[in-house]
């Protein structure tokens, strides 16, 4: 957590600042270059020239410390699951997870006989946005990212959480 | 801005600390750092004399030569220390005493 987060009562300045901050966060969600399987190729395609994720402010980072969004693109095997968890823990707050593709959401085609496939990445880390498809098209991914941005924009980073 | 005395005092403190490091540190690199302190103290004196003692630019030049020497010394010393490490798996100068009975 940052120094200032959730430290303030609700007032006009904080509200404005909140807006500014959530705007900043939603506008520059840097994603973690982290491909697992087939979906990773579509993620690369989304980042490449035709779809160009950078349009919506996404920038790839190869170190989890500097990323905001983790796109779990592909099948999470059980061997990999621990690593995914560790990478998630290494990310700095605020952090978001997108489960891309049916494998990451639920195990996908491997849900029945996949003795070595994790049936959905949400079993180990919290997921903000699920994107269906096998694999999802780049457009779906972008849609999912925009959904995530909307979600972030609704946050109020500085205000004290009510229920805390 | 201090007079010659001030600079000489600072230099002597640096010098003494350098001597102390050389005498008491076990690690070869720490000893080297002590040597650098001593050299710096000497340099400070040179430059102070250049300013106050009428040594003029010659003092600077002496200091320059000391710096050159320090560079050479550091390079060789570190090469020796690394060699020491490769042979003894330690850089503690007191452990490298095979010559002792």
């Amino acid at each position, binding site marked *: 957590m940052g120094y200032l987060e959730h430290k303030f009562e609700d007032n006009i300045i904080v509200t404005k600042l909140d807006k500014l901050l959530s705007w900043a966060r939603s506008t520059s969600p840097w994603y973690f270059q982290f491909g697992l399987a087939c979906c990773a190729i579509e993620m690369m395609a989304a980042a490449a020239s035709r779809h160009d994720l950078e349009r919506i402010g996404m920038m790839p980072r190869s170190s989890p410390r500097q990323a905001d969004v983790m796109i779990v693109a592909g099948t999470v095997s059980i061997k990999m699951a621990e690593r995914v968890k560790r990478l998630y823990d290494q990310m700095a707050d605020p952090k978001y997870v997108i489960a891309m593709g049916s494998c990451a959401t639920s195990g996908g085609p491997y849900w029945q006989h996949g003795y070595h496939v994790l049936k959905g990445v949400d079993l180990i880390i919290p997921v903000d946005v699920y994107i269906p498809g096998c694999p999802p098209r780049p457009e779906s991914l972008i849609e999912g990212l925009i959904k995530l941005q909307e979600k972030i924009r609704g946050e109020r980073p500085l205000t004290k959480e009510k229920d805390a | *801005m*201090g*007079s*010659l*005395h001030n*600079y*000489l*005092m*600072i230099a*002597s*403190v*640096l010098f*003494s*600390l*350098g*001597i*102390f*490091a050389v*005498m*008491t*540190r*076990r*690690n070869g*690199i*720490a000893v*080297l*750092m*002590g040597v*650098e*302190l001593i050299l*710096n103290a000497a*340099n*400070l004196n040179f*430059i102070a004399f*250049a*300013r*106050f*003692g*009428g040594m003029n*630019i010659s003092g*600077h*030049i002496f*200091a*320059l030569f000391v710096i*050159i*020497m*320090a*560079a*050479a*010394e*550091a*390079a*060789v010393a*570190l*090469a020796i*220390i*690394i*060699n020491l*490490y490769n042979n003894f798996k330690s850089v503690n100068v*007191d452990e490298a005493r095979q010559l002792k009975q």
Partner: protein
Amino acid sequence: MADVIFWVIAGITVLSAFIVVLNKNLIHSAVALLFTFFGVAGLYAFLWADFMAGAQVMIYIGGILVLIMFGIMLTNKIQSVNISHSSMQKNAGAVVVVAILGLLIWMIQKTPWKITTAEEPIQTTGQIGNLLMSEYLLPFEVASILLLAALIGAAMLSRKTK
């Protein structure tokens, strides 16, 4: 004001030199040495030796200190960042060093220094260059040979034995 800055710099220099000598963590010593060198460079600047201050920063910090850090990293297992190192004969050393320091201070106080008030040189670099090329040419050449020898020697010492 300048006096204050002078004493601040002098304080930093001496204090960081103490840390260099007394700190248990080797890499911290090296970082403290950085401040010592910087402080000494600051003192040079007070002594109208701008070129020497630059040279001090460039060679001591950019060269020697980097070498020292490389040396530290190469001679320690990289598994842990904390490198502690011990000292020996601290007490005896301290006594002797304090004696030496006392002696030096006593000597500094006692000696009647011949103090001339020189004028601030307009620029030192040119003068240093001229002197190096005329009066101190031989030492200059010798120094270059020394550096060459050190270069070759260091390369020889640290090269891989196949």
